């Protein structure tokens, strides 16, 4: 039996494009990223992300992964942060990353490395701090 193309595509879309808020109700994110079967939402504490001061990220990953790492760098300057964030697993796909600091104004890129059931996913998000 051959699968019709459209339903199969829809099924694939449902399998790989599950936004975090869909399985983590009540999590209000500023940004949601998707890729490789994972969806990640995050917001900063405090918001907006400050320049030159430490802040935390509240993160929700769906489906809940086995592991998560977060970092940030300035692509134009070829350097990252001076601080290594620590990540606390709050359970059920929720995380809190602490100790981030954007020490220069300009374009930053956040990098989230997710160790999920479907393998590894690297999701990125651009942010400009003034």
């Amino acid at each position, binding site marked *: 039996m051959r699968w019709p193309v459209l339903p199969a595509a829809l099924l694939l879309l449902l399998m790989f494009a599950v936004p975090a808020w869909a399985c983590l109700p009540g999590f209000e994110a500023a940004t949601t990223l998707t890729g490789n079967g994972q969806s990640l939402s995050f917001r900063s504490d405090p918001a907006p992300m400050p320049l*030159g001061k430490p802040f935390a990220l509240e993160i929700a990953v769906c489906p809940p992964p086995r592991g998560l790492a977060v970092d940030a760098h300035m692509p134009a300057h070829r350097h990252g942060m001076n601080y290594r964030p620590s990540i606390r697993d709050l359970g059920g796909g929720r995380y809190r990353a602490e*100790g981030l600091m954007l020490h220069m104004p300009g374009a930053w890129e956040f990098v989230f490395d997710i160790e999920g059931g479907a393998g590894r996913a690297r999701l990125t998000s651009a942010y400009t701090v003034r």
Partner: protein
Amino acid sequence: MKRLLLLLLCLLVQPAWAIDFSADERALIESFGPWPPPMQPDPSNRVSGRAEAIAFGRALFFEQRLGGDGKQSCADCHLPAKAWSDGKPGTGGLLRNTPSLLDIRWNRWFGWDGAQDTLWAQSLRPLLDPVEMNSSLAAIAGLLRKDATLACGYRQAFGTAPEADDERVAVNAAKALAAFQETLISAPTPFDGFRTAMAANQPVPAEFSAEAQRGLKLFVGEGQCAVCHFGPGFTNREFHDIGIPYAVRPGLVDPGRHLGIRRLRDSHYTLLGPFSDDPARSTGTETRHVDLLHRNWGEFRVPSLRNLAHTAPYMHNGSLATLRDAVRHYSELNEERLHADGEKLLRPLNLSDTQIDALVAFLLSLSAALPDFPEAEPVCRVKP
């Protein structure tokens, strides 16, 4: 006629802008103030902001018996008349120049390499450093117990006589020294007057020249100086390699921030250590998360640009004698001197002499006259 008069009046009170600033530039300039910023006591130092500790710390600062040889005080290198620096480049065993103590309370990291995360730890370090004051915990504590006036000052500051534990007494002395240094705050400058006038759309104060305005335009624009020198203190309070050689002489290298982070991690005089008075360790986030990276080699603390008129020579080793030399350094930056991980941001600015003059004029506008520093009353009047 009335309209004409009004128009003339408007023209007369128009700010004397030498140049136009864009909305983004105005917002950036606005972020360079107000000055001074709000002052919060240091939660890791229980006597921060307390008058008795400030008076005791001031007495200790000028106390020559604190030196290992009994003849050297903090004030021998941090001279009030030189904005609490000494005007000398790093020489001999001291590879680095003596930084000003003005506005030091707003530092995140202390020392050119940031090996300390509190002002009290930074105050203890030179007391014990063999190359600097070469004293010891026992000698400091012994002096404070033996001398009636200092013991009285200690009692007033900490509510108890100097304890039997040498380390505890010496750290408390450092906390009183920190409480005193927290009061060393520079006055508002001609730039601050300009910033206030700009925000209120008032005429430019005469003290802020047209040349300084052109320098400010370069500072926030083409020069990209504000990428590292921002906020009311004109610093991001972090560390960068700006191409100043860190090989001091054959066989001797100053590793800068790389060594600073290693020293911080080895020290127990930190925000996370047993001598912090803040049980919640509420200000320890940066200490907990600071990362040791290869690029930290040759990085040094980004200093505040306030008070530059009083704090020559410049750079961590005091190798540049004048402010003009410092601006010229960025203008003619030798990219070969930036080590392999050097930041792509840095490139020679190739400034004209006129542009260098303008930047220097702006930088000089970030200094106010130094206040007189009158003699203090004795911290205690003890009968012989």
